[in-house]
């Protein structure tokens, strides 16, 4: 699990590794940790799966991947893990989550596909539906339109304003 120092380290590094010769030294200065400890901790967190990957986080849209479909399915709860695992193996899939059903929103399995255009994404989706046996389940496809905000997942502490209000 994450200890207090792991959390401090992740809070600083999640904002982005500095682009300079000794970036882990810089991160270490921010959280009062020697460079070697920064590197050791990150290595361990990665081995433990508490960091999924460490590296460049690209902006799909700016790199020509303009179509983005969130597809949601209503699948039996006892199949969700198996289907989710299968969907996640496709290289064009960029997220796959189970979320709880809501009143008037019966979907429990979510997947994200990024592609250069809608036609490509729909073709990939057909491929996915065929390969995973998803054709019998209700689904909706929600293409993205305007992007109002996009940045990597950055974990926040409560702001003073919220804590007060």
């Amino acid at each position: 699990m994450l200890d207090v120092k792991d959390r401090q380290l992740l809070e600083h590094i999640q904002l982005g590794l500095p682009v300079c010769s000794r970036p882990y030294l810089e991160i270490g200065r921010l959280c009062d940790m020697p460079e070697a400890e920064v590197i050791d901790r990150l290595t361990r967190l990665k081995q433990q799966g508490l960091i999924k990957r460490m590296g460049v986080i690209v902006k799909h849209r700016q790199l020509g991947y303009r179509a983005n479909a969130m597809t949601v399915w209503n699948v039996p709860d006892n199949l969700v893990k198996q289907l989710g695992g299968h969907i996640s193996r496709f290289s064009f899939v960029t997220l796959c989550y189970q979320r709880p059903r809501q009143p008037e929103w019966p979907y429990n399995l979510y997947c994200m596909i990024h592609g250069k255009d809608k036609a490509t994404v729909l073709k990939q989706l057909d491929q996915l539906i065929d390969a995973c046996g998803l054709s019998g389940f209700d689904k909706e496809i929600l293409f993205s339109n305007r992007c109002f905000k996009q940045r990597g997942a950055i974990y926040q502490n409560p702001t003073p304003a919220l804590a007060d209000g």
Partner: protein
Amino acid sequence: MLSPLHKQLLNDYQRDFPLSARPYQDIADALGVTEAEVLSAFTELNDNNFISRIGPVIPPNHIGVSALVAMSVPESQLQAVADKISAYPEVNHNYEREHRLNLWFVVIASDAEHLRAVIDSIERETSYPAMLLPMLDDFFIDLGFKLDLNNA
């Protein structure tokens, strides 16, 4: 536009970015260029908004809690409501989607109470109900995304 070096950095360093004292030097050695060239190429990728950052991808709900939130907002109000929501530091993504539920955003907070406070505040400020969709299970093993940059 994108140089061969930019393309290599974009595709080859989404995972396994070197965890060493001189990571950019290690990349330079692997690609047969200088550290200065790698540093300036990454600076250009940052400045041109092709990357959001170099950093760790942390599995959801290990630090803090997150939820996807959906709202149905009249088209004439959408930009104004979206701007209000984007102003929250806890909101990471905020997209219009082609659906009756046309505004989708992700809130990340330190704990369940903080998350609830953000959602309540957004509902009060916008006066639209929010459908909260927390993550129950994450099936995705993130290995990065293979970009076809032939025409980029």
